[in-house]
């Protein structure tokens, strides 16, 4: 019988290896999990300049070899969170992750970090780091070596109630799950230590804690809820949503930070659902024995991921099935990423309608995803002309390609899981944004220092002849960067060049309202418009920013030169997508330019100049 023992040991080992295989996936797994289940916030943040975001305070001076990121984790009452676990994940260069812990004062240090952009993830049971609340890793704060962080964790919210059956008796041991209404699940809390999953006790009472503030649907029963493995006896049932509904008619539950939302009682229906089954077709690289095709089932109207399963790559049949599915519309997604070829992920989607019976024979045919590759180059500059004092490196810069589309689809979320943190950047400035679906994309560029600015972006296909010296700062009208790039299914777009100047200027100012005490109008934005007519259609020379309630505003990472400065009130965005910068649209741009020229408020920004307190009279443009 000693053999049995050995087999079990090997089995446990195999399991660990399979887990490892998941970790070895590019983009790493923790953020990937998080991203797989949430809505990403719009990519370009409208309150900052369109493409630029400084990574670090300029006052930090660091040696370029290796450095530290240190900081402190506190709860919102100011006490240290002493049981926090930390992960520093490099999001450029090699995708290495380092775990860390805090001391009794909540302090942590990651040392020996090579230059790169990092995200720092703090995990503590029942607590949440709100800066990770978007669930979209590409929007998590980036940190560079030398950074000193203060991570504030808030006590997560609570949903509690009782699950009873039609006779009013408690339903015991039923899994209860809370999902963010606008998210594709409560990912951060699911995978990063909160508890969006609970089980009713012997009185039928459940208590879900560690929730981000927001609107949730709450459901009991069903299969495929992440984190449930052993059959509960409720896994064939259609999940019952609060108060006693299907997903289509679920009533959202509001959760506030640190607060318990009570009385969320669910009348459990226990209706048996239908199944959706089929096969995954298409050629995959099955050289890796551990490869697996992930298949998800999403609710079509909300794109919430309801269930997830996998099929083995080495099994030619590649069958899948989902159970406990209610009547309705669903989106199926299949995706595969070979560990040996992380660039070449494959995906397939299909909409399925369930009406009173099982759906069988679904075929999901995998097709290649697209990629965008290019190089970021620093303009040559004399050392004495550089204004960056921290010796920033290209490997610390991030290039990301968010979708330029208003609505997010379930497949987009899954493909972004493959893409991980976006384009990886190496020390030579080479980057690739992988595993993109066909569609329209923006570039989101995060530079490591305010001393840099994006001077030009050229797509290889439309680039001017390379004969011109790099100092030729004027992109011609025909190939000027227009803000978005459209890629076809499976396309491999390469040769994108991003040129970065090293003598950027900055402008901080304050809107002056007359008479004194007048409120700043809502939706007020300040725009910088290039005064040089030759730059009239170069959207990289335009910048816009929001105005804070005290009237202050800030521009960084600006190309030196003359600008018109103008303010205008803009209506709030209608869709959940990030609004495009005003200058991207030729008509709006022309209008903005006319306003700016009329106002004639001009500012000259010399290389490396940081203007500190620029007064801007309100109404200058009107």
């Amino acid at each position: 019988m000693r053999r049995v023992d050995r087999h079990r040991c090997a089995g446990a080992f195999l399991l660990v290896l399979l887990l490892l295989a998941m970790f070895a996936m590019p983009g790493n797994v923790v953020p990937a999990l998080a991203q797989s289940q949430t809505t990403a916030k719009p990519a370009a943040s409208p309150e900052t300049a369109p493409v630029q975001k400084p990574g670090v305070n300029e006052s930090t001076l660091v040696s370029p070899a290796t450095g530290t990121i240190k900081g402190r984790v506190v709860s919102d009452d100011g006490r240290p969170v002493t049981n926090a676990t930390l992960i520093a994940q490099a999001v450029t260069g090699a995708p290495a992750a380092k775990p860390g812990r805090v001391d009794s004062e909540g302090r942590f240090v990651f040392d020996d970090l090579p230059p790169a952009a990092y995200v720092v993830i703090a995990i503590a049971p029942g607590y949440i780091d709100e800066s990770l609340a978007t669930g979209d890793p590409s929007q998590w704060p980036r940190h560079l070596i030398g950074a000193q962080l203060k991570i504030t964790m808030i006590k997560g919210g609570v949903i509690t109630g009782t699950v009873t059956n039609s006779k009013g008796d408690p339903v015991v041991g039923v899994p209860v799950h809370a999902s963010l209404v606008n998210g594709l699940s409560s990912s951060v809390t699911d995978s990063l230590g909160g508890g969006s999953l609970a089980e009713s006790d012997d009185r039928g009472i459940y208590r879900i804690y560690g929730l981000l503030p927001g609107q949730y649907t709450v459901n009991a029963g069903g299969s495929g809820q992440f984190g449930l493995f052993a059959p509960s006896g409720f896994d064939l049932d259609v999940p019952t949503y609060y108060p006693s509904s299907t997903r289509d008619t679920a009533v959202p539950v509001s959760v506030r930070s640190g607060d318990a939302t009570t009385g969320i009682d669910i009348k459990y229906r226990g209706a048996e659902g239908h199944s959706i089954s089929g096969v995954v077709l298409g050629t995959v690289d099955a050289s890796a024995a551990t490869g697996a095709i992930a298949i998800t089932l999403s609710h079509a109207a909300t794109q919430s991921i309801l269930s997830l399963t996998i099929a083995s790559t080495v099994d030619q049949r590649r069958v899948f099935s989902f159970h406990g599915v209610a009547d309705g519309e669903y989106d199926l997604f299949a995706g595969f990423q070979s560990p040996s070829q992380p660039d070449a992920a494959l995906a397939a989607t299909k909409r399925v309608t369930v009406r009173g019976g099982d759906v069988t024979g679904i075929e999901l045919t995998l097709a290649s995803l697209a990629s965008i590759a290019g190089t970021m180059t620093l303009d040559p500059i004399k050392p004495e002309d550089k204004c960056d004092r921290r010796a920033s490196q290209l490997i610390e810069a991030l290039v990301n390609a968010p979708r330029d589309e208003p609505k997010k689809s379930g497949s987009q979320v899954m493909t972004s899981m493959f893409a991980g943190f976006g384009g990886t950047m190496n020390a030579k400035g080479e980057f690739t944004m992988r595993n993109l679906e066909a569609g329209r994309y923006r570039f989101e560029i995060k530079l490591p220092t305010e001393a840099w600015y994006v001077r030009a972006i050229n797509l290889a296909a439309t680039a001017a002849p390379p004969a011109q010296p790099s100092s030729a700062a004027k992109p011609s009208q025909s190939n000027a960067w227009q803000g978005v790039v459209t890629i076809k299914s499976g396309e491999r777009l390469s040769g994108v060049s991003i040129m970065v100047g090293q003598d950027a200027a900055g402008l901080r100012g304050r809107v002056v309202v007359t008479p004194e005490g007048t409120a700043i109008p809502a939706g007020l934005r300040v725009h910088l418009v290039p005064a040089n007519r030759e730059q009239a259609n170069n959207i990289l020379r335009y910048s816009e920013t929001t105005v804070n309630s005290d009237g202050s505003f800030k521009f960084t990472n600006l190309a030196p030169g003359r600008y018109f400065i103008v303010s205008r009130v803009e209506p709030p965005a209608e869709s959940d997508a990030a609004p495009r910068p005003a200058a991207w649209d030729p008509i709006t741009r022309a209008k903005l330019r006319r306003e700016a020229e009329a106002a004639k408020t001009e500012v000259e920004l010399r290389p490396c100049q940081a203007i500190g307190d620029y007064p801007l009279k309100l109404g200058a443009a009107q």
Partner: protein
Amino acid sequence: MRNINRVLPFLTLLVLCPVFCAAQTPARDTSASISGQVTIGGKGVPGITVAATTSSSPLDKRTVAKTTTDDDGKYQLTGLATGQFTIMPIAKAYVVGGSGAYKAPGQSISVAEGESITKIDFALVRGGVVTGRITDTDGRPVIGERVSVVAKDAPDAGRPVTMFDGPRNLTDDRGIYRVYGLGPGSYKVSVGQAPSGGSVAIMGMGGSQYSKTFYPGVQEEAKATIIEINEGTEVSNIDIITGKSGRGFSVSGRVVDADSGQPVPNVFVGYSSLNEGNQQLGGMNFTGNQTDATGKFRLEGIRPGHYAAYTIAAGQDTSNSYSDPAPFDVAEGDVSGIEVKVRRGATISGVAVIENNFDSAVAALLHTVVVYAFSNTKGGAPSFSQGKINADGSFLFSGLAPGKVQINVAGFPPLPKGLTLMRTEVDGLDQREGIEVTAGAQITGVRLVFAYGAGSIRGEVQVEGGVLPAGLTLALSIRSGTGDTARFIRAVAVDARGHFLAENIPPGTYELSVGAIGPDRMPAHAFEPVTRTVNVESGQVQVILVVNLAAKKAAP
């Protein structure tokens, strides 16, 4: 501990996919049924859901049939195919009694084609409840920590958290826990992790940060206050104040190539707890920690103890190296300078064949098989290589440590029905004890001999001369060949009635052996093993095995 509960199950789901396995069961006779009665205090209970879940493999568990008890508490589950099922009333606050030990209701039943099984009855007893609050020494609630309630006499070894653990028995955001469904008896309550418990820790997550503390706040298990639970009673205010076990210390070092001394970048480093004899205790700790460009690594939060660090070839089928385990001791401070030496491992290559097969469709099944080679050296880092069988039948394992290497089929994807790995041959000789591998050897010409067949062995184990001691279950082991040449093929569960069924057995001669398994899933020597030799062709072989408990008692 909370974190691992969140992350691990998700990962496991991704990797193992319980649904996948079941989805490919071919159409078959589903006319079998199981019936019985659910009672409380001798009276039938109406309205209780009774479910049948598959239990053929721990990786393939899901509900396949469900029904509700009628006014007399009677139920009948229909539409069942042949196979092994767990039948359970969904009554989680209840327990069933039986030969002295209470347990959660559920019986494993082996179902034959078209069989009508009756009298699978459940006499439910309302379980007791233990509830209380866990706080730390600062008075703050301990959140998301697993509370362990174990019988007075059972050792509480601090079982590692597994992916099979649901969200049950965890403290909530107020530190409150509620453990229900406890059979009448005497219990001790504890929280935290014993030093030797071991865990599968990922990315610094997993493993409790609190030291093992028994109610009412003692470290020694022997001093734990015993709590008496009666039928349906609730014992409250079982509060525990638990100390942090300390954050542990950091352990740093380098991974270098044993021959060149060059640093090895970007490899995963794990560690295990060892006993004085350098034998592995508890689980393997995967920290998610990779070496940097200069081969350096640092492990965090390691408590005092004796350990070994080693590299792990994460998901790389083609990793060609292994490491010597580097032992280290943590006492009262950080440890540095650990050197883990990586060596080029041995390779094993060859071809896989299906013996006596001329059907190309059957031959094609081989290409869906994932095989692994495993060498477990004493106190060492286990070395492991996984590979698929290529279209020409060839396979390759690499990076193996010296020692005895066993080759087996992986759990995912499941082995196609009817296919069994019979033996591993080198030069025509069966390597029953594993292939002897020396350092860096390149072993070629290994044959993995599979067999294909649809025979089955059905039978019954009859127990004579007494009653099987509480907590023990019967298990059947099937070996190919007989006597000294027997090679382990499969373990088969024996159900509550003593029935068993082994399907998809290739033609051949097999040795069946019945043994007992204890609650720890380890063999228990309760009686002399009973063996029987059977000859399987394409149909079903029926066999009855008689276990005589008195015979064991008579033995010295």
